[in-house]
């Protein structure tokens, strides 16, 4: 139920002990570790399966998600309508399939934006320090004091409604977490010997940052990305539930739940399936994130 970007407490501390060598063998070892991780694999499979469904949705949906079958409103799940119909007689299963595209697109795009912005700010703040560091980190701390949903609501009030502004709002809410994570990692790496050496050789700041520090930050970033996409999906659903997300008749899972809530006595399935879909997707991403975190944890790796 968390709509905030969050990580386990020791993720940051683990990354600080990461041995810094070539990316190659680390990736291969990490992948192998992931493949062996039971829950991580489940997460990966579930996420990929849902992604596949999302991509193929227009082709495999049995009905047009917008098509109203007037005489068939509030039909319980049956052979004809796998998950029943809604108040307009639209097939809920088809709507859920198409709705997955909304969840994925908002989740992935918003976190992509948040990652780019957050990492850039975090790299600058961590490496250069000074007033930029203080000001931005204080600002982010203040932002993090508010519940994510409240922040998102205010941002949407300023930017106005619409599908793209939702993506922006979710992105902005997630920037502080990425910035702080990156900054913490940069601060640790900055003091390492190899960085000192590179600096002594006369490499420019950007070269140091992008060619040396960033790759060593990437594994924790990957974990954070997965977890953040999960919470972005949740936040989008929550905003849609409140009526602030992608507008109808787009079959956003959150808005379907919001409407379904008003018809629970008539159509209980309407309140069950969209929530199930959200849970499944978020669970898959969460388990994947868990698996990635454990796989990339140097303590678990048999490395010299």
């Amino acid at each position, binding site marked *: *139920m*968390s709509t905030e970007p969050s990580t*386990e*407490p*020791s993720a940051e501390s683990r990354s600080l002990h990461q041995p810094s060598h070539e990316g190659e063998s680390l990736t291969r070892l990490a992948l192998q570790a992931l493949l062996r991780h039971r*829950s991580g694999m489940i997460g990966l499979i579930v996420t990929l399966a849902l992604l596949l469904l999302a991509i193929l949705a227009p082709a495999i949906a049995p009905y047009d998600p917008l098509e109203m079958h007037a005489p068939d409103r509030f039909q319980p799940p049956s052979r004809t309508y796998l998950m029943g119909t809604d108040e307009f007689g639209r097939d809920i299963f088809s709507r859920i399939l198409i709705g997955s595209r909304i969840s994925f697109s908002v989740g992935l795009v918003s976190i992509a934006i948040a990652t780019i912005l957050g990492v850039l700010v975090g790299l600058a703040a961590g490496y250069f320090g000074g007033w930029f560091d203080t000001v931005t980190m204080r600002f982010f701390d*203040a932002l993090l*004091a*508010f*519940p994510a*949903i*409240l922040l998102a*609501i*205010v941002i949407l*009030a*300023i930017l*106005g409604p619409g599908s793209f502004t939702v993506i922006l709002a979710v992105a902005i809410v997630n920037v502080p977490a990425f910035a702080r994570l990156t900054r913490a990692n940069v601060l640790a790496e900055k003091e390492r010997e190899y960085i000192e050496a590179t600096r002594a050789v006369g490499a420019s700041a950007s070269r140091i940052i992008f060619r040396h520090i960033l790759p060593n930050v990437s594994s924790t970033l990957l974990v954070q990305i997965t977890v953040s996409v*999960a919470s972005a999906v*949740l936040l989008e*659903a*929550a905003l849609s*539930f*409140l009526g602030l997300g992608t507008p109808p008749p787009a079959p956003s899972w*959150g808005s379907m*739940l*919001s409407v*379904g*809530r008003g018809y*629970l*006595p008539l159509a*209980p399935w309407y*309140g*069950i399936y*969209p*929530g199930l879909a*959200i*849970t*499944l997707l*978020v*669970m898959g991403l*969460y*388990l994947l994130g*868990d698996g990635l975190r454990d796989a990339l944890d140097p303590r678990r790796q048999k490395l010299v």
Partner: protein
Amino acid sequence: MGKYALRRLAQMAPALFLVSVAVFMIIHLIPGDPAKIIAGPNATDEQLAALTRQFGLDRPLWEQYVTWLGNALTGNLGHSFINNYPVNQMIALRVPATLELALAATFIAVIIAFPLGILAALRPGSLVDLLSTLFAALSFAVPGFWLAILLILFFSLRLQWLPPSGRPDFADQPVEHVKALIMPALTLGIALAAKLARYLRSAMLDVLDRDYVRTARAKGLQERAVIVRHVLRNALIPVITVLGLQTGDLLSGAIIVESVFAWPGVGRLTVQAIGWRDYALLQADVLYIVLAFMVINLLTDLTYGFFDPRIRYQ
């Protein structure tokens, strides 16, 4: 310790002042003219002008802020644009509902999380540990509003035990009031429980590895004493941090839960104020949220002192 607390309280004042300025500016960033909104579609230009004057919106921004600040320092936080009622009373009316929900949810969370987290840490890899992991994963993935809907489906519609929404007056109907509190508190509490259990487990695992635990055991202390006096005490610190953060969240109003259960708390008030561009209400509301956070922060810091004798405040 008292002096430390006083010092912290004194530091809150300038912080609040800065926040009030920032919030004031941000609120006015939100597009939409409150006067137009409240005047409605049939308002003539004169009516609109009258409202604008009444809200003080025709004066420059800095002057509006200074007026607000002057009033605020005497305890007058202004009147809501929508119904002209004193803002601090509007918020004060909602605070008990939010507070009650926060406390109930925290209580539920603690009684679920503590046994679960402690046992999971003491028996890693066991069934309990697996359950706690599953519980954590599920509670992260299940959206609060869906859990709320499922609870309503089951306890209100199917079993007819609990009311689906609303908050009856405690003085009038105490039993109904408590019944109405259960589902919203459960919704929030279960989510919080899973998080707390995870943190507690992690923190305990961390501590269990430490030297002084080994020492305590070597000294021949009974296992239970070791756990309670050494492990738990130290593990509680990060847990209290998290609890503090979450409580702050709860105090600012669990917006979704209040929405689904029509629970008249501060969260819903905030959303309404944003929607109606009720600047006066919103300003006071955000300040309340920030103040609540600061107080919780302070309480959390003070509580550390109980658990870690190394932390001392002059």
